[in-house]
């Protein structure tokens, strides 16, 4: 199962701190001397493009969702309530974050703690839970470290935070805290 193109783009590196995000967007950073300009965009331009693309995200009001999607969104919101400081959790139509990725499954906004879930992920509870576990991992890692870099994908802090998120969800699940939302889900 592959969602991301196997071909990766190249950008000029202006700041090595942006390498993780560049990689996240399906690109690799190339460090070249300023005296050898290449007709390719920089990492900063790539990230600005991402910001512009994500600005076109359309939040889908609950009443425009199918019953099934709404049930899964309610489960996502119940999971989010288990953690302090999470912002609004919404269904959305999220554009691909770069031309090297095919879809964006979800977004986490570091300042506000808002989580958007791309509509197709709400088709099944299993994908909804996977996105929430992942995004809540960013949230917990960010709250623990105060660093966006430390809270990025596959960092030790993100992995530890996902472990914590998983443990809390399993504990609450066993205590029946999500039973109301689980009545009508399709795994």
């Amino acid at each position, binding site marked *: 199962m592959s969602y991301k193109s196997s071909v990766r783009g190249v950008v000029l590196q202006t700041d090595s701190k942006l390498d993780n*995000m560049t990689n*996240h967007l399906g690109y690799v950073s190339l460090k070249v001397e300023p005296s050898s300009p290449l007709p390719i965009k920089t990492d900063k331009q790539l990230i600005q493009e991402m910001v512009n693309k994500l600005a076109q995200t359309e939040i889908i009001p609950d009443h425009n969702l199918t019953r099934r999607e709404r049930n899964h969104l309610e489960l996502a919101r119940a999971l989010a309530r288990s953690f302090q400081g999470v912002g609004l959790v919404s269904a959305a139509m999220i554009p691909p974050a770069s031309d090297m990725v095919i879809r964006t499954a979800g*977004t986490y906004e570091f300042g506000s703690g808002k989580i958007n879930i791309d509509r197709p992920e709400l088709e099944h509870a299993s994908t909804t839970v996977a996105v929430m*576990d992942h995004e809540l991992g960013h949230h917990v890692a960010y709250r623990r470290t105060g660093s966006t870099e430390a809270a990025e*994908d*596959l960092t030790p802090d993100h*992995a530890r935070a996902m472990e914590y998120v998983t443990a809390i969800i*399993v504990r609450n*699940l066993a205590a029946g805290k999500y039973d109301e939302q*689980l009545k009508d889900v399709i795994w």
Partner: protein
Amino acid sequence: MKKPRQKPEKIPIMPDTPQQVAETFHSYGFKNTLESAFLQRIASLQRK
């Protein structure tokens, strides 16, 4: 005089592709843990 600490430039939004979600979710065994926990709970609710 103490200089004010410069805030690092922040990237406000982390967009995740389905592949990135799957990679993290599978890598550390979270999928198995959550899937079996949810399926057990859903099955026990359906028996009630």
